[in-house]
């Protein structure tokens, strides 16, 4: 018989950390400038792919770098930082190559349709939006927002993985890492999907009016990840 209460009490810190990680992931997705299908036709500002897909691509790259770091160090800040850096590298490389394609392949300048002036560079935006579109490409504010989003997502993913891999369990190290990484990927996806209901296909970054909706997603993620973390901790701790 598994001592469920005992396992939870022993690992209560990890339950809290996993929940915090999930909430961070959910918040981070709001920063990522995604334009969905319209952006792939240079019809909306942002990266031409889905919310979940890009956030997951960046966050999981962070998980890979954090996973490598966890093998050689016990320092939590270092593990979180390496997760953030891995995700930030992935998302900024994707965005810079996206800018190449928009600028040299499609021939459009980056422009936002949600604000008249870029909040960071103070550049005029509205007159650079081509007719019949909702902006295109990645103006500086969206790029910076994407980097912040990638970083937060990487920290969240790394925190979830760190917590899962440190649960007291009878598993061998190899099996524990395999199981913890799969749980981490699962929790990442759950929290990447929740904000997409807020975003509804396109968001330009933290300057977009839709960004203000993040508290709803964060509260939902808090509840959902808390339940996920209990299941994860009992499943791994009980083995």
């Amino acid at each position, binding site marked *: 018989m598994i001592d469920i209460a005992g396992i939870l009490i022993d690992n209560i810190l990890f339950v809290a950390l996993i929940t915090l990680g999930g909430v961070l992931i959910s918040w981070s997705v709001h920063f990522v400038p995604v334009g969905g299908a319209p952006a792939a036709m*240079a019809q909306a500002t942002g990266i031409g792919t889905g919310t979940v897909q890009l956030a997951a*691509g960046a966050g999981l790259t962070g998980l890979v770098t954090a996973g490598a770091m966890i093998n050689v*160090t016990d320092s939590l800040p270092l593990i979180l930082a390496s997760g953030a850096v891995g995700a930030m590298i992935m998302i900024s490389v994707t965005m*810079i190559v*996206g800018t190449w394609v928009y600028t040299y392949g*499609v*021939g459009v300048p980056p422009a936002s349709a949600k604000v008249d002036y870029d909040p960071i560079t103070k550049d005029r935006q509205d007159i650079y939006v081509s007719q019949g579109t909702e902006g295109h490409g*990645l103006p500086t504010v969206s*790029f910076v927002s994407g980097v912040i989003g990638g970083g937060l997502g990487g920290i969240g993913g790394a925190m979830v993985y760190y917590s899962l891999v440190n649960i007291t369990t009878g598993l061998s190290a190899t099996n524990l890492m395999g199981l913890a990484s799969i749980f981490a*990927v699962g929790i990442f996806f759950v929290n990447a999907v929740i904000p997409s209901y807020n975003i509804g296909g396109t968001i330009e970054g933290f300057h977009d009016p839709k960004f203000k909706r993040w508290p709803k997603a964060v509260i939902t993620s808090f509840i959902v990840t808390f339940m996920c973390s209990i299941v994860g901790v009992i499943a791994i701790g009980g083995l």
Partner: protein
Amino acid sequence: MEPLMGMGVLAIIGAAATIAGASEDLESDVGSQSNPNSQVQLAPQMNYPHRIFNKAISGEPPSNAMLGAVGGTVTSVLMNAYGLSVVFAIAAGALVAALIHGTYCTSAYMGRSASQKRFRQPIYLDIIRSHVPVMMGFAYITTFCILVVSYLMTAVLAHPFPLPLLAFIWGITVGAIGSSTGDVHYGAEREFQNVEFGSGLNAANSGNIVRKAESGLRNGIDNSWFCAKFGGPVTGIAFGMTVFLSGWITAVFDPSTGTTAGWLSVIAGAIIVLALIIWNRRIEVAARNTYGPYKEDEVEA
């Protein structure tokens, strides 16, 4: 590990990832997967029936993650349970993944085209015969390279994740990158070469994709011919850079030698990101100056 050895392995990983990225994007151009397919799907409804392969099995990331996971699992089983050599196991894993991909491609095209019967969109059997092997070929190359990356990471760089999971994660990443970069070249440029160059797709033109080719009627292979000149290679560069740079910072500043080196690797990564932000800004300024505004400035004029 010797730093030089680590860099050598990383170079092979980067090269394999570059090929994987390019072939992933070209696969999605032949089969019209991902976001630009919304226009291919829309065209017959707007009275533009076409001969372009129409599939969107799923978003590119889940689709490539499935290929990676299937290939990685088969490879793992063949290596660990049957003791086969790595090269054979990876080749067999990629082959199984490509076969499954071919099945999905065929059913996706049949299903999507059949559902558009009322818009008089034909199902071209010759398109299936000519396109599916090409897509399977690209899927094979993508999966093979992702498995090479994942295997080298687990076996040589001692990454703690199991091989199928790494292949799954890199599949998600290559799909996310391909869908964000190379596909824009296909969706925003190749599909709409009939409108003036240098603007986004006007919503009024939705569905009016180019249906005539340089010779005859345009199909998916014509699209990959065009995208192979720019969209495919840059996708390869993007995925290669992601895999290479995220590993490079820890290869140069090895965190196993101490916490200081670990923090140096983080700082190196942050500097790379900062450089990319500045680079993006420079391209933005250059593009604004070169192309100029679309509308006159009402305030200052």
